[in-house]
């Protein structure tokens, strides 16, 4: 069943990513495709394109995938990962300009209701300062 937009949570810290995913699971439930990743391949703080690609795959939905990120490198690595996807998938993955924890809960709630990828992103970004 992939009738809901998927959510990827990406932090420099694996613990932040896991904790954020726990909040989404407990508050919104398990009906939304969700994955998380964090840390560099050496186990330190950071992000990795390879892990992001795997996370996108895990949360994949034909309706698309919204990625929630924390700091700068997470966004640029997400963009690199998106560029490496199959062309037909590239247009269905977006990075949300929203705070990671709040944005993930908002995005997942919107996704739960069956909203489009664009609506999921807009809901997460409603939180951002103008």
């Amino acid at each position, binding site marked *: 069943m992939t009738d809901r937009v998927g959510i990827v949570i990406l932090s420099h810290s694996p613990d932040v990513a896991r904790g954020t995913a726990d909040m989404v699971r407990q*508050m*919104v439930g398990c009906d939304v495709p969700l994955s998380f990743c964090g840390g560099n391949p050496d186990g330190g703080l950071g992000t990795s394109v390879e892990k992001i690609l795997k996370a996108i795959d895990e949360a994949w939905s034909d309706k698309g995938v919204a990625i929630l990120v924390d700091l700068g490198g997470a966004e640029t690595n997400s963009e690199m990962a998106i560029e490496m996807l199959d062309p037909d998938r590239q247009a269905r993955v977006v990075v949300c300009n929203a705070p990671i924890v709040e944005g993930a*809960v908002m995005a997942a*709630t919107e996704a739960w*209701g*069956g909203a489009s990828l664009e609506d999921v992103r807009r*809901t997460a970004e*409603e939180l951002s300062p103008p």
Partner: protein
Amino acid sequence: MTSSSASGSVLLTHDVGLHARPSVKLTKLAKSFKSTIEFAVSPEGPWIDAKSIVKVMATKAKKDTVLHFRASGGDAPAAVAALTSLVERDFKENHADAATG
């Protein structure tokens, strides 16, 4: 399906008010209905979209606030009944909701 409208109000008794988790529950329940559903903390409004998680959470309604619901659409009466029931039972899970959601 004939269109109808419904309204109702309920006292918010949840200790910490309409904080994060109750907001998500309220929004998810609202989204499970087709009708347009709004709520307000005053009968004069402003009315906000009960299906918008960001707007619901932003109301920050406190304990002892009366929440006013109004809905229009085919399942409006059921929507208002379900939402007021959710608030009445202090946002606890209910099997009837699980079936719709």
